């Protein structure tokens, strides 16, 4: 029986991996929900407000982006624009080549995953070290992140200890404290030797040209401490109009992402080292990355650009919990990824057109989204777009004939009666794959097509008789 790719992936997923994804996402989701309810009088109102702020921002990029550029330059940063992944990678390379730089330390940024920066730089002979512990483990394992906040949610500590051993980071030891200490020792030397530190931006405020980066490991701060040059890769949708908007967004981001009131490190970066400042990078570059976002903005799913990459939607998603992030075959997994990844795929939209189908449309993602993105509606729009673009849909019964039946009352009523065949036919003989998919896992209740309508007519007759009797009496 042919089922959808993500469904097939879920059946191949090791029970152990499913358990670690399920337990970890469930725990974070429950803590997040309890924390928001305990600390805010109206968490839903806050989510809606944050959604309106971000919606306003993405609808006013035409004025906010030039303003941000002006303020960044006034603060001493250099600003670059990258229309696609390649342009973004080339900007990074050009900056490094101009400085004769060959070593980069890099904080966690999803947009760098999206443009595959690390692979690009390695091909150019540049060392590019991931300094977020999870991303570092992904890097030494030649793996891919499976969650946008917790890239190694699919791994357990035994696997991590094994890859540390294999990579010469010490004899097998799966104590988290030991693993962390070894990574730290290894990275300290790298921070000191690096020429360039690269970060993303959780937010970039237009009115002040201020970049906000949040982490829990402090690695972005280390990445900016020793290197003389800071490059920030910023998706154009990361803009916020005003500094005060951070009050809403920062309050929601950490709570939604990791059930923390605030991330351990929240950095506000306002240009390179100013005269008189003791340290910090002497040069700062901001690369604004479009890479398909303008197209998304022009389309019918633009609300997805509100996303602040907290991962709450994947934590609550029953499909993500069963299938894990790698099932989505894209940088952005889960509900947000099921919308964003096919949209950002551009000409390869059809390759990922099955992702929006990987949802029971339960709406839990919308309910937890800190910027109130109507994810189920967007998934539905993409299903429609996929169908019109000729996407395949394994296992799905054809809807055309069904619509014919369901728009002709006489045929519908005949089908209701005809369906009684199901009560005598052994179910394994029903020649419809969708029906087989149902009955292989569930029983089918007995078919009672037409029974309600029969009752209804008898009921009307009874009422008419009672009415007649009342009239006669």
């Amino acid at each position, binding site marked *: 029986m042919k089922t959808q790719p993500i469904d097939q992936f879920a059946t191949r997923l090791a029970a152990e991996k499913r358990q670690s994804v399920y337990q970890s996402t469930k725990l974070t989701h429950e803590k997040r929900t309890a924390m928001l309810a305990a600390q805010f009088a109206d968490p839903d109102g806050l989510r809606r407000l944050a959604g309106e702020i971000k919606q306003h921002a993405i609808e006013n990029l035409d004025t906010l982006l030039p303003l941000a550029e002006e303020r960044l330059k006034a603060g001493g940063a250099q600003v670059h624009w990258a229309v696609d992944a390649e342009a973004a990678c080339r900007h990074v390379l050009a900056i490094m080549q101009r400085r004769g730089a060959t070593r980069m330390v890099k904080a966690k940024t999803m947009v760098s995953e999206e443009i595959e920066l690390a692979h690009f730089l390695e091909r150019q002979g540049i060392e590019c070290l991931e300094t977020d512990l999870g991303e570092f483990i992904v890097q030494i394992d030649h793996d891919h992140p499976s969650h946008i906040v917790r890239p190694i949610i699919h791994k357990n500590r035994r696997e991590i200890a094994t890859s540390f051993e294999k990579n010469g980071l010490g004899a097998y030891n799966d104590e988290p404290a030991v693993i962390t200490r070894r990574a730290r020792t290894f990275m300290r030397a790298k921070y000191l030797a690096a020429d360039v530190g690269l970060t993303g931006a959780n937010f970039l405020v237009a009115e002040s040209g201020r970049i906000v980066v949040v982490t829990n490991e402090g690695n972005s701060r280390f990445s900016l401490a020793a290197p003389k040059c800071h490059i920030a890769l910023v998706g154009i949708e990361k803009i916020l109009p005003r500094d005060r908007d951070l009050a809403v967004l920062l309050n929601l981001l950490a709570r939604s992402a990791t059930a923390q009131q605030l991330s351990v490190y929240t950095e506000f970066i306002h240009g390179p080292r100013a005269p008189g400042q003791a340290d910090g990078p002497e040069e700062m570059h901001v690369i604004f990355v479009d890479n398909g976002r303008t197209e998304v903005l022009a389309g019918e799913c633009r609300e997805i650009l509100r996303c602040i990459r907290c991962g709450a939607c994947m934590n609550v998603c029953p499909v993500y919990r069963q299938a894990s992030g790698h099932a989505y075959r894209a940088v952005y997994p889960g509900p947000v990824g099921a919308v964003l990844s096919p949209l950002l795929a551009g000409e390869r939209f059809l390759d990922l057109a099955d992702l929006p189908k990987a949802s029971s449309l339960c709406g839990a993602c919308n309910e937890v989204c800190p910027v109130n993105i109507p994810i189920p509606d967007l998934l539905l729009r993409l299903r429609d777009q996929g169908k019109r673009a000729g996407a395949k849909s394994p296992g799905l019964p054809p809807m055309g004939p069904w619509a014919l039946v369901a728009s002709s009352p006489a045929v519908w009523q005949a089908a209701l009666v005809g369906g009684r065949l199901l009560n005598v036919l052994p179910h394994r003989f029903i020649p419809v794959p969708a029906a087989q998919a149902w009955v292989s896992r*569930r*029983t089918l209740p007995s078919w009672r097509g037409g029974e309600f309508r029969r009752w209804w007519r008898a009921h009307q007759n009874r009422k008419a008789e009672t009415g007649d009797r009342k009239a006669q009496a």
Partner: protein
Amino acid sequence: MMSIERKPPLGKKVQLLATCLCDAFYDDAAIATVQVLEHLGITVEFPEAQTCCGQPAFNAGDWTASRRVVRHMVYAFRGELPVIVPSSSCAAMVFHGSLLAFEHEPDRPEVEQLARRTWELADFLVHGLGVKTWPGRFDGALAFHRSCHSRGTASGEAAAALMRSIAGVTLVEFGEGEQCCGFGGTFSVTFPNISEAMGRLKLEHLRAAQPRYLVGIDTSCLMHLGGLAEKEGRPLEYRHVAQVLRDALRNGGLLKP
């Protein structure tokens, strides 16, 4: 979820949208809906030309096919009367989904006219008619699964409040109540493995609560969960909320059996 304001009901007459699942499998849930409404003095009309809300094709991404069915239903339910649906999912298709599918269609106003007067049953009882408590008696612990398509609407709380008010009823809590049962319409057959895993998890939580009945406002979730449980050889008895309300009336001698 709700994207439009609904008109308050005028008068004591409604149209019933029975849903395709009641038409094919769950006639008693539709009968109970009629009996509950008539008990409240409401006159029910059943437009016989009705078929399905159009959601299967809508969710499957075949919006052309879906619009064909929605147009038929708009015709079948023409008029001004409130339309009552014993399903939060079909109701949401009428007042939310179909509006998405008709965003760029010239006949959207007609679709919206139907949307504005369509109510899920429990929501209509509590917020349309102002019913606060339910008479009669129903003995036992009920596990109430709030269907996902009632998220963001008043239906779930309305149904829970009505059931809680019935003498003899206890609503039992169960783990991960906000999680989907795994039905999801065509999702249940195109993602059968994930759908089954989700359903089994739900059953585990439900069984731990040891209810006499699983109760829902959508027969679709019940059909999926009940079907999984029966296939496992450990059947779980389930009822639509309309059946609980109707049976409470019967048990209290307020409705002839």
